[in-house]
């Protein structure tokens, strides 16, 4: 509980200091705020770190790039003054189906116009504990603003991570018997049909057994609380058409029964830890059954496409 208390304090500090959003004034409502969108960060491995930027008035920051400066804050037992860490330039990653934008300057947008996150690649944290990221953005028409937000970094990944063997999961498919369609894909709960049957042909176990690479999205398009899950699954479906010869494409639905709070075993195997589950996640598994890469929340569709393109064409 001590760690929770500390991070609460850090979060409050971040939310209420540099962004100056404590007074509810119109100026405060124009100040940039930040929230880390990446989960399961851990030490000594290059990772992506995504941050959402927004204003208190409901507007979002979209397009261009932003600067990230990371600082180490110590642990719950031994908090320290911020100690400078890595720096990076973060690129804008749009929600699939929304525009990428042009130019290098972040722009204030409505959610209907654009929505996405800013992501830095190859960030390595050298110590477990609490970190913060200071985001600097030169906002079109507003000038430079900064916002700071904390997050935690663990000693080990809690979820399957690159370099580890993929779990040989028998996820539900359209061939599964005696299973409600909505347990295979929550989209079926809306109109009674599975929207992307091609993503429900293979189990992860079968792909590994047949030495076929797999791109696996864990998501619940209907019951997702965030705004990303549906578009994320749609993006994987589009990738499956373009790179059909490079990998098998699999959607693992999170919920076996949403109303009764029953999670599908396939999703639980990969994502359910200590009573919690985060989604969406995207995993790229190599032909040898090793996890090649993973993406939390949003991903750059073109980047995933490039990684698929690097795989040798499959036989058969």
């Amino acid at each position, binding site marked *: 509980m001590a760690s929770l208390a500390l991070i*609460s304090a850090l979060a409050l500090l971040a*939310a209420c200091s540099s962004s100056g959003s404590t007074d509810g004034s119109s100026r405060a409502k124009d100040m940039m705020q930040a929230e880390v969108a990446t989960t399961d960060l851990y030490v000594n491995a290059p990772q992506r770190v995504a941050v959402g930027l927004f204003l*208190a008035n409901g507007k979002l920051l979209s397009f261009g790039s932003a600067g990230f400066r990371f600082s180490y804050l110590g642990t719950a037992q031994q908090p320290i003054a911020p100690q400078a860490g890595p720096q990076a330039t973060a690129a804008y990653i749009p929600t699939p189906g929304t525009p990428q934008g042009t130019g290098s300057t972040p722009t204030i947008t*409505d959610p209907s116009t654009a929505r996405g996150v800013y992501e830095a690649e190859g960030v390595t944290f050298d110590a477990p504990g609490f970190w913060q990221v200071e985001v600097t953005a030169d906002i079109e028409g507003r000038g430079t603003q900064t916002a700071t937000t904390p997050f935690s970094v663990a000693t080990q990944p809690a979820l399957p991570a690159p370099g580890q063997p993929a779990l040989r999961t028998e996820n539900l498919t359209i061939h599964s018997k005696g299973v409600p369609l909505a347990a295979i894909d929550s989209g079926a709960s809306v109109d009674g049909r599975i929207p992307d049957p091609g993503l429900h042909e293979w189990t992860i176990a079968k792909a590994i057994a047949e030495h076929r690479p797999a791109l696996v999205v864990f998501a619940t398009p209907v019951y997702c609380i965030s705004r990303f899950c549906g578009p994320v699954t749609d993006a994987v479906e589009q990738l499956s058409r373009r790179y059909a010869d490079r990998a098998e494409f699999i959607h693992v639905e999170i919920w076996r029964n*949403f109303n009764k*709070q029953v999670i599908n075993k396939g999703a639980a195997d990969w994502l359910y830890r*200590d*009573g919690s589950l985060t989604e969406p996640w995207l995993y790229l598994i190599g032909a040898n059954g090793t996890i090649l890469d993973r993406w939390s929340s949003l991903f750059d569709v073109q980047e995933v496409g490039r990684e698929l393109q690097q795989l040798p064409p499959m036989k058969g």
Partner: protein
Amino acid sequence: MVRGWTRDRHNRRAAGGSLVPVLGAVLAAVLVAAVALAACGSSGQVPVPSPSALPSGSLGVVTQRDADVTMRGLCEVLAVGASDRDRANALFYDRSHQELHVIAAAAEVRDRPAAGRLLQDMQRVEADLRGHRLPATFGGDVKGLIAASANALAAIGLTAPSCG
């Protein structure tokens, strides 16, 4: 209040088809999101159920004002109808969409089926809006979403203004 980047988090009791008791463990990042998004003017506390607390879920608190703004947005979408897809899209995503997610997250704590219906009806409307032209069913789908939203709000003790 924007809560746009909080990933879905499920503190659930069950996995794999067999019920597994689980305590409501909260990851640190959830706390970051909840606290950071609770607005600085708040007490700064993670929402904890209490008789006086506003309804809340994993995405934050829902106030009656939030509910009013969200529902008015849906009413405007209904008024626009299927004739102006871009206007309907802007109204839906700029006025109502994100807050509907917050309402669903709050409702699922108290009435899961109500939250489920709300999310299903949202999915219908979102599917309609993905097309270049809105289908003839759009008005009915929006009405369904308004009804599901009102039901979810009732589940968390808030009222929904009627369109009209």
